[in-house]
């Protein structure tokens, strides 16, 4: 096996306009494609709530609590990561605001800050950055995808976005930012609207983060004109505007992202070679069988 001397690359996935757009599935799909090209990738979820972990949360609030091999009680998105990648996650793959503050406050009580005033910047953001880099430093992964929970503009997720800005400032082309957004479809006029996305990208820009790639959830195909408009107003390349159309099953998404060349755009941004054509044969086989069943269900 070749030694991995090239620096670990970090991809951040933020969400705009609305929650529940499926950042977890997009992150897992991208990781799957990178894995299929021969890269070792892992996904991390940063959750902006103050619970130390979701173990004590009512399932009505937050869905299932997923458990890792090393006994972390985590967000259910980690389940998607494992189901897509077939690689186990660990304690480091899910970090909450509560966990960050707990660490910082414990350190303060130990006297680790040597009498300094402990503040959100730099102490909280430093701890966030440390947690993000932790996975990269294991030496097991070439790419770390970090999904930031919540929606851009939330007060809760501000320190995370600031940490992302600082990491880009430190590492430049070793980082890429994907912004997942929604293009609402207006039935009356029969068109997809880009304004909410423009505003959400503006908010991100106010925090000093320029997204490199827009992944646009939509119920209709996103035509070239809309792509050009989004690229121009959101300051991204036109090939970095990716359509993510509603799918009948989440297992469709990696192939939809492959068709939209999300993997290629990401690798180009990170200045990484494409390596091999993605080996998705096993996945296509699984999806084919699943689709037959879905079809049967519809016919009944």
């Amino acid at each position: 096996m070749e030694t991995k001397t090239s620096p670990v690359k970090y991809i951040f996935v933020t969400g705009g306009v609305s929650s529940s757009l499926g950042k977890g599935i997009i992150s897992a799909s991208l990781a799957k494609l990178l894995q299929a090209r021969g890269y070792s990738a892992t996904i991390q979820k940063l959750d902006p709530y103050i619970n130390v972990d979701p173990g004590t949360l009512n399932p009505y609030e937050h869905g299932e609590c997923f458990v890792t091999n090393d006994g972390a009680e985590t967000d259910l998105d980690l389940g998607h990561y494992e189901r897509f990648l077939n690689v186990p996650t660990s304690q480091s793959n899910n970090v909450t605001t509560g966990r960050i503050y707990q660490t910082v406050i414990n350190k303060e009580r130990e006297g680790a800050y040597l009498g300094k005033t402990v503040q959100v910047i730099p102490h909280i953001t430093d701890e966030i950055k440390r947690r993000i880099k932790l996975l990269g430093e294991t030496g097991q992964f070439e790419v770390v995808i970090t999904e930031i929970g919540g929606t851009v503009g939330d007060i809760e997720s501000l320190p995370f976005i600031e940490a992302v800005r600082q990491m880009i400032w430190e590492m430049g082309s070793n980082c890429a930012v994907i912004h997942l957004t929604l293009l609402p479809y207006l039935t009356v006029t029969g068109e997809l609207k880009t304004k909410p996305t423009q505003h959400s990208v503006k908010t991100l820009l106010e925090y000093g983060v320029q997204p490199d790639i827009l992944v646009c959830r939509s119920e209709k195909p996103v035509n070239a004109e809309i792509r050009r408009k989004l690229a121009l107003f959101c300051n991204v390349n036109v090939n970095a505007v990716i359509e993510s159309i509603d799918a009948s099953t989440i297992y469709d998404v990696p192939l939809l992202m492959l068709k939209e060349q999300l993997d290629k755009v990401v690798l180009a941004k990170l200045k990484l070679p494409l390596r091999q054509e993605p080996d998705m044969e096993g996945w296509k086989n699984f999806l084919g069988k699943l689709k037959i069943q879905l079809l049967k269900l519809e016919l009944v």
Partner: protein
Amino acid sequence: MEKLPWQTKNPTSEVRIGLIGKYIELKDAYKSIAESLIHAGVSNETKVNVEWIHSEKLDEKNVQEKLGNLHGILVAPGFGDRGIEGKINAIRFAREQKIPFLGICLGMQCAVIEFSRNVLGLENAHSTEMAPETKYPVIDIMDDQKNITKKGGTMRLGEYPCNISKNTKAATIYGKSRISERHRHRYEFNNKYLKKFEDAGMVASGVNPNGNLVEIIEYKNHPWFIGVQFHPEYKSTVENPHPLFVKFVKAHSTIPDNLKSSFQQRIYCYLCGLILMMNGS
């Protein structure tokens, strides 16, 4: 593998699995189980229809109506008292009607409670989680949990090994004698009752290496009745569908017809009764 004569050549094209839980209003609460069933369906090339059934809405009177047409009954994990009796009713129905049953975590514990009450005759047997003063604590708190007062991150969590006994259904399903599965619980099967259970046909087919925690139970007098203290759903992936789910989805099609007949007879009787009633009116 060669098929036995009673195994149908074309497996049932649709398998109806009842998922019994108390959080079913939010399907995300059982995300990994639902996905594991999808993986298992693809692996069997069978479509799996999941019927979400609220445990609080199941009683002795309506189990037949709500569960009678299912090919498999899965009782979901959970905590606390709500919906427990519904889960126990569902398990009794699965056990008596020989419908394939998979109980996970609390689902396994409910199977233990059901068996104690209805087969062993231990009246009002319960878990000390729900009934601390119960006369028959068939499910009890683990020794190393007794002095824990804080709730966050203090359960028995993560991966632990488990030894599987030879010549059991679990051994056939996994095809190996040592497995490792993920856990999330404070309570466990009370070993004081183990002999009584095994004498009556409910055996501990999976036990942790120290031999003090029952991880898998299975009922010998039933074609497919398994309870697991761990969470197999956390380990099922697209590439590696979990064997427990794969075999559970398949179970119905492998049950000999003479065992299924009780169900068909019931349908027949029901239809005859209906016709008689209609003639009479």
